[in-house]
């Protein structure tokens, strides 16, 4: 994506890949590189490209729309600020951005709910991605991820989704699912590896 079309790229957008090493990621990396040098047009393009995934993951975790907007805004500004710290050797640009978004979202819910009884959230919170699925632009990506999640064992799937979308720690997940902590840790790792293999194989 060139800089010249960054203006036009604002507004409703397709999602460009899900961080799976698509060709588009290379240009997102290039854009980040330009952002690191203070290029605002490049930043607009980055916002257009990553805005949906940032807002989506923050909303899935934080839930409250007002707070989700606040956090998503912080995340995108983080991308602007910290673009020079992105290291392509350590993962895709998409993964870098989504990690920032997810961490910020988790930080927000943990700060708010540290003292609260988190178990209360469990019932309504499981597999949050269903709630927002209808709004997703990247239907294909979404369907692919859901199909691959379907290839996981139910314990792997629940461990991964409760942690990622629910914002629970592995100990909390273990409690919620009534299984030993060690088992949950293993299932999270195995589940992600299987997810990755499935996505990479398609």
């Amino acid at each position, binding site marked *: 994506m060139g800089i010249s079309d960054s203006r036009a790229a604002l507004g*409703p*957008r397709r999602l460009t*890949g*899900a*961080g*799976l*090493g698509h060709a588009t990621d290379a240009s997102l990396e290039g854009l980040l590189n330009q952002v690191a040098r203070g290029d*605002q047009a490049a930043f*607009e393009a980055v916002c257009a490209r990553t*805005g*949906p*995934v940032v807002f*989506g993951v923050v909303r899935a975790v934080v839930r409250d729309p007002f707070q989700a907007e606040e956090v*998503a*805004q912080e995340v995108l*500004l*983080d991308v*602007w*600020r*910290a673009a*020079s*710290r*992105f290291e392509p050797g*350590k993962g895709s640009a*998409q993964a*870098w951005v989504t*990690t*920032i978004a*997810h*961490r910020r979202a988790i*930080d927000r819910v*943990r*700060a708010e709910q540290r003292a609260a009884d988190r178990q209360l959230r469990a019932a309504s919170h499981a597999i949050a*991605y269903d709630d*927002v*699925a209808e*709004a*997703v632009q*990247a239907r294909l*990506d*979404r369907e692919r*991820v859901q199909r*691959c999640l379907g290839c996981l064992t139910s314990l792997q799937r629940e461990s*991964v*989704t409760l*942690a*990622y*979308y629910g914002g629970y*720690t592995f*100990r909390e997940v273990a409690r919620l699912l009534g299984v030993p*902590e060690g088992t949950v*840790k293993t299932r*999270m*790792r195995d*589940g*992600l*590896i299987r*997810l*990755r293999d499935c*996505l990479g194989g398609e």
Partner: protein
Amino acid sequence: MRWRRRPEAHAPHTLAGAYALNAVTAADRIRFERHLARCRACTGELRELGEATAALAGAVAVDPPAELIQRVIAESARTRQLPPLVGHAGAGRRARRGPATQGVRRRRPAFPRRLVSAAAAAFLVAGAVAGGLALNAERDLLAAQSRDHTIAQVLTAPDAVLLTARVRAGGTATVVMSRHDRALVFMTVGLPALAGARSYQLWLMGPRGDRSVGLLPPPRDGMTSPVIARGLSPGDWVGLTVEPAGGAGTPTSTPILMLKLV
């Protein structure tokens, strides 16, 4: 936060999945990152796991309100960017610290592998993202050696805020505070040495009155090691005064630093 040794401390590698999912507490994260620093295989694995979690994020993508993007872009125009990380003082190689979970954070070999150094590194990862972190402050923090897990707790608190200020007598003070934990960690660099029987004394000053936090330890290499202040109250300031060697019950001189706690 408890720091007792858990059985899985012997096999931190099994935390990779939970770590990639951010499904770890601050303590777990520190422990795993210490492991990461020594585990080459982990870097590759985390990169793979990171792509899987990015896909999970992609699956819930939804267009943000257009105003949100407009606000961000407007805000970016007046927001200073972090400089790239280049060689730190005394370190002959590039510092590698990124804001993501993606990788090894190297440390200088001579750097003590203390818990708090890992904590500071972990905090700095978040802090670099949170922005506004001056390289000086990074160095101060990284160099800071500590004795107490409370420091790690404050540094890694989700709501940790970093403040820096110039001290009137010379030097810089760095404060990391967690409102949730009602605690802060205070460090200085470059404070002038005090002649005679005098000490620097740290205070919390505010609606609840002036409370002594304690004397600053003698500087080493120009830096004072971290001092912890607990029991922060709304409206408090941090104050630093020069007092007679043992300290005073109430401040007896004009503060050379007054820093409002946000």
